[in-house]
């Protein structure tokens, strides 16, 4: 079963590598991964979809929380959460099928973001399974090209974020500093 991990981390070089390294060292394949800056530009929010044995999920989360750059890692697999994905899809649309394609897009609440003689570029967001259906439907009209964003998730249960306060680092005075 795919595990969904939501992760808040420092927006620093190498932070991503530490997180993915924990998964790849076990031979896990990351199915999807999104990462972007949060309101606080020093932090990033990351959503990972990865296949992890159920009994190891808690350990993976603990080991992620142990990383110095990670502020909070949460397992959203079995908690109340919303997961959404964005799809950008290019479909070749000859004159005779254009109206039908637009109708289908409407059903999926998708938006046309570019239209040309060759066809459309359509943007759709929604649940991951729903988007797969959308892609299948569009595929039936002809040649398509798809870019999926990977899931982004938010928990419906607020979890308090505990941050480590700054700590004093006591040092010996040296001759040069006096």
């Amino acid at each position: 079963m795919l595990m969904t991990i939501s992760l808040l981390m420092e927006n620093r070089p190498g932070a991503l590598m530490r997180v993915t390294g924990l998964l790849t060292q076990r031979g896990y394949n990351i199915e999807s991964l999104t990462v972007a800056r949060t309101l606080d530009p020093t932090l990033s929010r990351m959503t990972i979809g990865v296949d992890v044995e159920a009994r190891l999920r808690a350990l993976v989360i603990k080991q992620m929380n142990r990383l110095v750059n990670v502020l909070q890692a949460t397992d959203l697999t079995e908690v109340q959460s919303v997961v959404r994905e964005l799809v950008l899809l290019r479909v070749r649309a000859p004159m005779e099928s254009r109206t039908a394609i637009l109708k289908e897009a409407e059903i999926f609440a998708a938006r046309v973001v570019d239209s040309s003689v060759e066809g459309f570029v359509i943007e759709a967001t929604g649940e991951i399974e729903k988007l797969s259906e959308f892609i299948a439907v569009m595929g039936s009209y002809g040649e398509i090209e798809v870019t999926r964003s990977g899931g982004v998730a938010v928990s419906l249960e607020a979890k308090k974020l505990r941050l480590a306060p700054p700590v004093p680092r006591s040092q010996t005075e040296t001759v040069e500093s006096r």
Partner: protein
Amino acid sequence: MSNLMNGAHILLECLAREGVDVMFGYPGGVMLPLYDAIYDNPIQHVLVRHEENAAFAASGYARSTGKVGVCCATSGPGATNLTTGLVDALMDSIPIVALTGQVTSTLIGTDAFQEADTFGITRPCTKHNILVTRADEIAHAIHEAFHIASTGRPGPVLVDITKDAFQGQAHYAPVHEIHLPGYKVVTEGHAGQIRRAAQMMWEAKRPYVYAGGGIISANAHEELRGVVETLDAPAVCTLMGLGALPGSHPNFISMPGMHGSYAANMGMYECDLLIALGVRFDDRVTGRLSSFAPHARVIHVDIDPAEIGKNRAVDLPIVGDARKVLAKLVKALKELAPEMQALRAADRKAWWSVVHAWKNQHPLEPVFGVDEIKPQQLMYEIDKISDGKAIVASDVGQHQMWAAQFIRFDQPRLWVNSGGLGSMGFGLPSAIGAQMAHPGKLVFCICGDGGFQMALPELATLANFGLNVKVVVMNNGYLGMVRQWQELFYNNRLSSVEINTFPNVEHLGAAYGIKAKIVRSPLELERALREAVDEPGPYLMDVRVSSFENVYPMVPAGGAINEMVLAPPRPVTVPE
């Protein structure tokens, strides 16, 4: 206060402020600015002969003092050579700060001379690592590195510094505060859990203390003693925890695990409460997990939440610093003692009589040879000389297990060995590190004939500094531990384990200017060891022991802890 300095000087200023008095390293191209600054700096630089040994020496320093060990190496091969030492420290939770040079920041990613992605390579080798490309970032990076290495669960931290960061000028201002919002260390321990633990401990009929390296890194040995004595429970110390409880303490059984004593392992199997303190339920201790301590409820105290329940389900976890938690635990135990002690007296007496019976049934006893020296006998003689007080740095293999079985340590930080990673070649450089930290102390380095040759270049460092290290090579002519497994599990097909070329150490010692001796007879062993100890400075001894001795008891890999293979009965030889 602020003044303009180059990055190299800022770095040394930060090290001084962290109380660093010695560092182990090897220079190179991009490290030139740093070594120029080291030239007239009061911090002593120990030039090792291979970067891996710089990391091992820093580890020996850290293990024997509890302070952060510092090592440094140049970019590329220097950094890659450090990695074994870094993983070794990571596995054993040893605080090390490693400093590596990196090519000039504008050259990174161009396949420049001696360029390697040290930051990427050492990510899984360290607790944390930091890449520094500007002089003004150095001070924060260094203090962060020391903070991370030495707090929480200790570990190695690497700071990779570009040449232009060393050369660049920056205004140096002391760093008094570290801000790492994601680095949360829980030290106090949950008061309610501690109370419940004390209750459980008194309620248990057959409590058993399983103490590990966490006790030593938290300096919690006094508190451990308090727990053990208050409860009057039998206690074992893991390979990493030897010395946490004095080896001569009446409650101390011995080491548990693959080569633990019969009593230690049977106690693990039969106890009804396992009090796990600063341990990680390593496979070399537990054997087959499904039959490890099958009748026991488990209390687990550890500073790392990720260790709780990792290998064994825990009934009562306490996350915190062992010293703080155990101090509170002793208090809680003592509060309950007046009502519980008498109530538990009969149970405790019965439990101890079982444990003593196991001890008597299959004691850890040295084997004495008549014609040839038995390896156990060598450890027994070293133990007699040490009397629980010497630092013993060990390499990896059979000799390490025999040393752990037969040499007592009456204090923590005397036993220096590579536990988790099992890195051959660790013994000699770590002994050098320990000796640098304790110039007045007797330091033994016990190696096999295999591992000794991995670390052989460090004889030069030993001679260079005239260090008082007694190198004892337990020479059985084989990679003994692998040979033992080939004998027991691979039909005695001895594949590539014979060390049939070994240098004559008397010539080797002479070449380095180190006193050396080959010892062959059991009759001369004790005197030869005493001579080595009395001789000031380094000493190299090749002790020829019997080739085909196996380490027993032995829990075969994946076996249950109570199903040990015991030493076969020995023919009794009557001396003439």
